[in-house]
């Protein structure tokens, strides 16, 4: 029997949670234990997969849960088109397809003993959330943890109940913010754009690695702040989201410069991102 690299495995939707009116998290379980074990033997945090519904197609999302939790995988995505609509039309108990893990991962083992700063905006928290869980599951190995997360409005914040859990932990510094005008009357977090809040917070300058994920404008204005704080392009990491189809370096769609986001990414240092032709991003 030939091995078909495009053949997906079947996953059952074990749970689903609406994060916002159009963003949903799906918890997926492998239908065969052997496949589950193979997946977790390979999976490292930061990698992505292709999630699909036969008839609609496949869509690329990061794996939003960490390798330290091996009963399931999670993905969080917005309903924007044909495939994401088909995925969100599936109910708990029904099946979807999955292929992965693909791509590069965050080198968290090399960050042992260091402080970590997570900066995320809106729907871009999921890839960092898997790292945050991963780090929290191995808390003793790492130094201080600071998270700055913001969205346009309160309704746009994802993982709301997890944010409350992180805020309650004494070993995590969490700051949440919404854009001016995005607050509700009972909002107790900050009000301001993420880069501004980041600057005020001025978290961990020493021995620190930063992970930044968000809309291009947020990244654009966060980078100078991080540079001021003493970060360099080599210790700021991000993950890119490009239009992908095959996920395995053949269809050409995610080619940017001499890199392929599905093979050389999606995890990149800022140095790598700045070396890419910016107009193609």
């Amino acid at each position, binding site marked *: *029997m*030939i*091995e*078909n*690299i*495009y*053949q*997906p*495995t*079947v996953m059952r939707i074990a749970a689903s949670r609406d994060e916002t009116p159009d963003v949903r998290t799906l918890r997926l379980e492998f239908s065969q234990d052997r496949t589950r074990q193979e997946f977790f033997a390979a999976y490292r945090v930061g990698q992505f997969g292709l999630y699909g519904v*036969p*008839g*609609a*197609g*496949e*869509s690329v999302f990061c794996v939003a849960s960490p390798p330290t939790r091996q009963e399931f995988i999670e993905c969080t995505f*917005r309903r*924007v*088109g044909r*495939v*994401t609509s088909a995925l969100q039309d*599936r109910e708990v108990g*029904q*099946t979807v*397809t999955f292929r992965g893990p693909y791509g590069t991962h965050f080198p968290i083992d090399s960050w042992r003993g260091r402080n970590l700063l997570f900066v995320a905006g809106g729907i871009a928290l999921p890839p960092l959330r898997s790292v945050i869980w991963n780090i929290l599951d191995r808390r003793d190995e790492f130094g201080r943890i600071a998270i700055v997360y913001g969205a346009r409005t309160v309704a746009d914040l994802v993982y709301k109940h997890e944010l409350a859990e992180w805020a309650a932990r004494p070993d995590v510094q969490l700051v949440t913010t919404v854009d001016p005008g995005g607050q509700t009357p009972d909002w107790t977090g900050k009000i301001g754009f993420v880069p501004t809040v980041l600057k005020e917070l001025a978290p961990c300058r020493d021995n620190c690695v930063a992970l930044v994920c968000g809309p291009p404008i947020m990244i654009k204005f966060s980078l100078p702040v991080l540079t001021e704080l003493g970060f360099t392009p080599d210790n700021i990491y991000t993950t890119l*989201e*490009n*239009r992908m*189809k*095959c996920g*395995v*370096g*053949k*269809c*050409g*769609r995610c*080619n*940017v*410069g*001499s*890199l392929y986001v599905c*093979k050389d990414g999606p995890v990149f240092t800022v140095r790598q991102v700045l070396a890419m*032709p910016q*107009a*193609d*991003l």
Partner: protein
Amino acid sequence: MKVLEARKIGELAAALSGAGWRVLLPIEDGNVVRLAPWSPGAAVRTDVVPVNSLKDALFPPSEAIGRFGLDGNDFTVKEAPVDSARTVALCVRACDTAALGLLDTIFNWDFPDAFYNARRSAVTIVSLVCTSADEQCFCTSVGGRPDATVGADAVLRPAEAGAKLIFEPLTDKGRALVSAATALLADVADATVVADKPAEVPQLFDRPAVTKWLGANFDSPLWQDWSLACLGCGACAFACPTCHCFDIQDETTRSRCVRYRNWDACALSLFTQHAGGHNPRADQAARRRQRLMHKLSYIPERFALVGCVGCGRCERACPAGLGIVEICQAIEEIQKVPAR
């Protein structure tokens, strides 16, 4: 040496077909010459470059890479069969075989593509040395030559002003053809038949210099000028022996779903369109730039190969006559102007 009468290529195809091979060769098909399956009566044409290339036989315009059974809201994953029918491609050009290096690399880059590999293993390639070239040919500008045999299992060398073809097997697969064609391949003493001179294909530009310029001039305003004539279709990419980008689309009936991979092109406007609305390559200049950069800058940097074989099919296929050569020559002109 073995020699075939050139006018008997059709009979060679018939003999190989009779022996169980699927035979592809350049034939008249309506108004064009295509590398297509032989059938009795097919008119063989070796005087022009076919509109398509060997790529079609290894990576067809549309093929099924997944199959599912559908049952209401449930589905089952099924096998997608590969095509491993024994095939021989006759009278393939050196530029087509030159593309195999890149295609083999991409389709086996960490994840071996069974669909491509099945066809690749099953095909025996018999190339034909070019003794003439047209204005669009430029293989020698990208490291190729009209008599190159890399990638071929056997080669046919025209001789006696094209009246004869010297058949030279190069691999075991090539040798395996001989037994099916003994009646047509005359044994002659070596050196009694002398091959015709290969075509003269003048070098039209310095490819490494072009690659160097491309690496430093992504943001050049010249891309706007160079892309005005581009109408944004996929004719060039589809005709190209090295272009391999594809789309994946599911098609369903009530009870089954087939997942197809279909040729796609970076020149088409939706290639990089995100579902959320953003398109990184939003104008034709950005898209045309991607074509040139991918072939002559990114692929050399990434794979140490050239993403163009100089066959000229892009220019022949383009409704607006755009190709690779004019831009490369323009780049060379720019480099000659001393920096101020």
